[in-house]
């Protein structure tokens, strides 16, 4: 099977501090991959490089056949257009949800299809309603984000991303800002998407979810991928001492 996401040698620094030091991996269609590692290891930055929210210093990202490549010390100018094209197939969910507070839940979901794809209002509304029902928010469509719980907001944010019909979903610590009791309602939505065959990459501290739901786990430390392993193997028998140390308290 052809990999749907192909990452080769990504480098990224902030103020001359290297955050990503040549990261490469591939993901096949339908996989759910958890990206774990200690804070500051570069996993969020890696995720943001995948859809161009961060501009890579050098390296290559290819998602669904759209390739964004940059040689060292070459201006980033042309990358903006390619990133925009690449994002067509990529949805993203943030730690802080980032719903648009001036719009109701359903308006949040309808906005991008109408603005970006020119979908008619009726059609966008019908699709939004379907997606919100799917994430369990069929009763809350006309509420404003401020009047929703964190779990509801995050499920709404997933519905909003799905409205653009992405082939790959990126999650940047989707449950870190949530009350423990509502974490599962969000993870359940992601598991459901996994069953439907969505390709998903999740930056997470939720080790239980990583172990239960992932097809495999990528462990990062200090800007590098240390280990890519099957979810059972990495928890039971980590190959690298650094992985072992990080996972020690979860074992």
């Amino acid at each position, binding site marked *: 099977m052809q990999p749907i996401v192909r990452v080769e040698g990504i480098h990224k620094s902030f103020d001359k501090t290297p955050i990503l030091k040549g990261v490469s991996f591939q993901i096949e269609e339908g996989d759910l991959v958890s990206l774990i590692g200690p804070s500051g290891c570069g996993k969020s930055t890696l995720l943001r490089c995948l*859809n161009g*929210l961060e501009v890579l210093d050098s390296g290559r990202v290819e998602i669904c056949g759209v390739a964004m490549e940059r040689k060292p010390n070459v201006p980033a100018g042309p990358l903006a257009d390619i990133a*925009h094209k690449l*994002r*067509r197939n*990529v*949805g*993203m969910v*943030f730690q*802080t949800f*980032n*719903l*648009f*507070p*001036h*719009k*109701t839940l359903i308006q949040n979901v309808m*906005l*991008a299809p109408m*603005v*970006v794809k020119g979908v008619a209002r009726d059609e966008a509304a019908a699709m939004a309603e379907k997606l919100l029902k799917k994430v369990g928010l069929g009763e809350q469509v006309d*509420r*404003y*984000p*401020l*009047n929703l719980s964190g779990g509801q907001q995050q499920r709404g*944010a997933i519905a*909003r*991303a799905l409205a*653009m019909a992405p082939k790959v979903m990126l999650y940047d610590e989707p449950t870190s800002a949530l009350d423990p009791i509502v974490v599962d309602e969000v993870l359940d939505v992601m598991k459901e998407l996994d069953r439907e065959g969505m390709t998903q990459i999740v930056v997470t501290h939720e080790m239980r979810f990583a172990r239960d739901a992932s097809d495999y786990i990528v462990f990062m430390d200090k800007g590098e991928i240390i280990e890519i392993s099957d979810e059972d193997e990495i928890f039971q028998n980590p190959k690298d001492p650094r992985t072992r140390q990080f996972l020690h308290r979860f074992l």
Partner: protein
Amino acid sequence: MTRLALIFGLLISSVIPAFAQPAQTTPAGALPQLRYGGALSSGAPYTFRDPGDPNKIIGFEVDIMNTLAERLGYRPVFVNNDWASLIPGLDTGLYDLVINGLEITSAHQAAADFSIPYYITFGQIVIRRGDPPLDNLAALKGKRVGTLQASQMEYVLRAAGNIDVRVYDEEIDVYSDLKLGRLDASVMDFPIAVYYAKPDRALEFTGDPIGRIEYGIALKKGAHPELLANINSALSTMLADGTMHRILDRWALWTQMMAQATGDARSMLAQPIDYDRFVEATEPTTWRGQLERYMRFLPQLGWAAVATVQISVMSMVLAVAFGVVLALCRVYGGVVLDRIAQVYIEAIRGTPLLIQLLFIYYGLPKIGLQLDPYVAGVLALGLNYAAYEAENYRAGLLAIPRHQMEAAIALNMTERQSLRYVVIPQAARIVVPPTTNDFISLLKDSSLVSVISLVELTKTYELLSTTYYDYFGTGLLVGAIYLLLGLPFVRLARWAERHLSRGMTRASS
């Protein structure tokens, strides 16, 4: 933006007639117009609003102008302007000539062409009734003496040395300060003294005539030699055939100097009916009469209020539109646009609005850009306020978390779409209160346009209060009108704020 531009254009075109001058004494006919400039505020007996009927413009210069125009085959049209801006107004083509007590001095002659004198007079010393008399200039030494700014008498008083000269814009303010003891004496042109001091029982004339003052008609320098020659010959005829004597008698202004200059020794050719009417109309009245007077002001104040609102709204539309552009340049425009916007904002905020206004209207014609006063006023106010709005909007844009923009970008919106649908609508809510604040402030700053000949509420206040020496009652009346004008906009802003805040407070779901 195009829709906005269209609305803006429509508003401008629908609005200009409000500033048109009222119809003149001569009925409209086939005759070509002769536009003459003057300043109406405390303008008696030169050119002023009739205290008996404030919709009419009268004065001995109006009478001279009407006769002159009739003899030369023109239809006279009066254009009001600030006294200090009268000569610059010639250069911008606001009117063809100025007849408004402009003295024929070398400084004036350097700036404009002058006719032969149509009136010759002198400076009159006025003191509080009962104070020791003052004979001449020498007697004024060491005293506080009031006169008009930029008048020939100011120059004469200063040249005399050791006189504490205090200058004013309005003649009635000089006499009012004299009565209040803030001045020891005043020296102003004899006609002013006749109209504003002589009828006042608290003041009296004293001493010898001071200096010699010649009033001439001013035309744009070198522009109309033929018209100037025709005016001169018509004036000569009027001086010789007794027409001028008759006009001046009716206004009680005939002087010894006029008799000498014209060789006309006859004492009185006409009764001072215009003078008597003025004195009667401006006499202090009962509170009932005062109330009736205020009622008469209302139509004029109404039109002035409309003018104020129109110019303020148009300026604000421009300020908001341009302010948004500037703010976007500053926050999202990249280094070059940010820099340009920053320079613009600093330059505009760092210089007085009054100078910008005078520069745009009287300065730009020097480089070939001549604007209608209304357009110049809206442009100056709008461009000035845009700088302040831009900073409000910049603060609003910066207050929206970066995450909002990122979320929109991640949904495959372009930066432009993200701004339009996500960032700007949220920022709009934040900037409504400061923008309302600025609009209320603009409503009042719009009074500055009176320096480029537009008549709005503050100017009308000045005209009415100087006609009746009533700053108090008229002031309360006009203040109330300003308050009433601002209120609907404050309510509109509250509504807009509520509307834009939907979803932003927990209670509103």
